[in-house]
């Protein structure tokens, strides 16, 4: 894939494949293009050239509406910040992908409650996410990413705004539950400790995949 922002190239021929159920860590220095790679894989950005395939279909050729549907049915996202709607409660945020997919409201909130309990947040379902701590907010984000039973969870620096203890707890939850559910995880990080949770690590440098290391975990 190639992708530029104006005159600035971000990806210059990066190529990567992810197996079903695999936990893949994308690492590299700042500005290397790892986040852009993740956004292209998730269908958030379209590459200028190259192809993105998911489950037998060209993701980069889908319309905006179809990619939106894919994001709420097949993908989940855990980002560093800016991913939750602070005016809504934790339960609202978790139920949102299901509500957006026109699921039955009661069913959506029942599943949200189940995930809250699974992540140890059962007392916080009625709290607005703007009032939660960083660790609590990330756990809500993990619940929201997994509530739709996605095929792939894309996580961009999921522990970037957390202390090391909370970060480890969040990663334990994310990778642990993903493994239980058989969910693929694509993880962007510059933290070797976080990368250590992956089955495989690819190192991005200057917009290309410079190395691939198997069996990290």
């Amino acid at each position: 894939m190639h992708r530029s922002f104006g005159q600035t190239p971000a990806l210059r021929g990066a190529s990567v494949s992810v197996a079903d159920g695999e936990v893949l860590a994308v690492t590299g220095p700042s500005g290397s293009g790892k986040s852009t790679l993740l956004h292209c894989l998730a269908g958030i950005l379209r590459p200028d050239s190259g192809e993105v395939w998911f489950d037998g279909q060209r993701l980069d050729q889908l319309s905006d509406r179809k990619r939106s549907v894919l994001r709420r049915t097949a993908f989940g996202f855990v980002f560093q910040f800016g991913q939750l709607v602070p005016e809504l409660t934790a339960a609202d945020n978790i139920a949102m992908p299901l509500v957006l997919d026109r699921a039955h409201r009661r069913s959506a909130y029942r599943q949200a409650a189940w995930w809250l309990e699974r992540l140890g947040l059962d007392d916080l379902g009625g709290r607005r996410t703007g009032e939660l701590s960083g660790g609590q907010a990330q756990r809500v984000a993990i619940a929201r990413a997994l509530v739709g039973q996605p095929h792939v969870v894309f996580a961009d620096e999921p522990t970037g705004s957390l202390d090391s203890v909370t970060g480890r707890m969040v990663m334990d939850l994310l990778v642990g539950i993903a493994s239980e559910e058989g969910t693929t995880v694509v993880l962007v990080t510059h933290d070797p400790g976080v990368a250590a949770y992956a089955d495989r690590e690819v190192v991005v440098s200057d917009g290309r995949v410079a190395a691939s290391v198997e069996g990290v975990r």
Partner: protein
Amino acid sequence: MVRLGLRLTLRSGREALTRLVVTSAAVAVGVAIMLAVLADFHAFEVTGSRPDWEGTQAMAAGHQSRAGTELWNYSDEVFRGQTIERLDVAALGPKAPVPPGLSRLPGSGQYDASPALAALIRSVPRDQLADRFPGSLAGRIGSTALTGPDELVIYVGGPASTLAALPGTIRVDKIATSPGTQVWSPYFRDAFVAGALAFLFPILILIGTATRLASARREERYAAMRLVGATARDVSAIASVDAVISALCGAAAGIGIFALAQSALAGTAITSAVYFPSEVTPTIWGYLGVLVAVPAASAVASLLALRRVRISPLGVSRRVSAPAPRAWRVLPLSAGVALFVAGILLTSDQNIGAPAFPGLLLILIGLVVAGPWLTSRAAQLLARFSRGASPIFAARRLSDNPKAAFRSVSGLVLAVFLGTVVAALLPAVNATTATPSAKALSNVILDGFMISPVCGNNVNCTGSGPAQFGPGASPLARKMALDGLPAAEGASLVAQLRALPGATTVPIYSLPPGATAGQAGPGGAPGPTGPGGSAGSAGPVDAIVGCAGMRALAALGECAPGMRVVEATAGNLYGDNPTYTTQPIVSGRSPAYTGGLRGLYLQAVLIKVNSQATLERVRTFLITHTRHSVSGTAPRTFGEAVQARLGVATTVQRLVDIAVALTLIVAGCSLAVAVGGGLVERKRPFTMLRLTGAPTATLYRVVLAEAVLPLVAATVVAAGTAYGISVLTAAKMAPAGTPVPDLGHVYYLTMGAGLVISLLVIGATLPLLGRITGLDNVRFE
């Protein structure tokens, strides 16, 4: 999506609730004002389409049967400056038509009065009012005959024989039911429509500004939703729900505010009369229009705001920022001024300047179009010539988006423009009517007994107008039409008038038959000007007056010393324009009249009174003792004639004042919402500035400069343009010698107060700045 939109709008915490309240309040203000305008327009239209019974015409000649006919004599009278519509009526047969508001005709010796007149008759001494109407009060006239609750109308029943002998009496077999045509109605209607449309502009700005409140933060939320799979259409739907909920709440509140204010509105004379409360209400279509249009406008404003940004799952990015305003933006304003000047050149001093109206409209549009460019230029000047951090910050932001900066003050600028035009022009126009002579004669009644030669604008004319002879008109009546009251009747009238306390009567006699100027009487000596010369200011000699009486009316001229009776030029007295009716009728060059006054017809009387009570007593006396006068004019003071003529200008001024006041209210709300919303939007950069050591005072100055600079720049241009076109208009349309329009202290006080209020509005938002940029807020959500 609707449910999620409702959830986000109604149950998303304090900020969302505050936004809902502010937006709803803005919409409520707009809706209440729009409903008030529609309500008054409806009352105006209903009143204008009322059956014009006053315009009833005489039946065709040759109709012999008396059944189903009546004698009808319509006239106007005046009481304390208010017009009384009077109908004297006498049935000639059993099925005579009944005027509106009654179930039967008043019998002889009875009268029916409108509720307001009935109350007036009861409350003032008989010799000032009730004596004008023979008989006793039989009932009240219903609202179908009236334009409003304050209208003074009376139907007087009388003997057919008496009525038949009165000038102006006609025989009718049916009463007019079609709407009447008022001279000024089309202008008021156009003014209403133009005013309502012009007023929509600041209301839409207010609603648009309120809808965009905290939009950046909302857009971030929408981006978060896009990340988890919301489509662009989902986001639009959620944004529309948000806007429509605010608009519906605001519309409901606006209707509530209007309902509370409706009775007060009904009691206010917006145009010239108070309407019936039941008519001061919008139509059902008006209500529906507001209820549909306002939420729709809000939804559209919200969606337009979304189009300015690209909301992706990764966040919000502004679309390509608009280029800086270019100088072409002053072209519409310049074209408007040019069109206005061309229109003024095409207009004459006899009309109301209609050719200049398109230019005026284009100037209004041009001010709004030019505003962003002016703001941008002012910001550049600020950055170049000022020191310190705050001007740089303010200028940078103004230059970045001058359109948004000007949008919040555009309503104020339009209000300043309209206010300046009115303040400069109307006093100049009024000065040409309320001349010093007219003021000096304000307590002098004129009652003419000849047919009035001029009858324009209904100022001096009564309903049936002059030159109307009843079925029994005699040769004497025709003689009276040309010369006034016969000598004996005139002498008796003058003697009785002179017996009234507090009144100084000056009779004006017609020239004797066959007389020419300067030779009016037997042995008459030519005056200083010689035969045929002018006695007064203008016009031919047509009257004879005593010099002793004229000394009490100095504004109408004085005779040469030693003169006792002179020939005068009284023709101007009977016009409708006080500029001309108050010109001198005699002068030091007026030729002496040496004939006797006995035997001369009484053309008119001028009576100077010492009080309002004396005025009404004299007027009542004149009305009851000169019923055979054919003049078609009601006894009226020069002051009342001035007031009648100024009435239209006063109404226009009142309408514009109301429009300016309402525009200021709406624009003030817009400014407050825009400044407050701007602070919330920039919470992060302002907090960062404080974190890096910028004192709060610097931030205050930034906010102040951002709001004041576009306001001052555009206001100066608006006021200057308005004053310039007002001077041009006055120079073209006012009589020669009219002074350059002076804006006067009221204008400066009003504009100063407007500026202070604007500053207070901005100042009121500054505590918010201090609170939201507190250093404990550095940790954002």
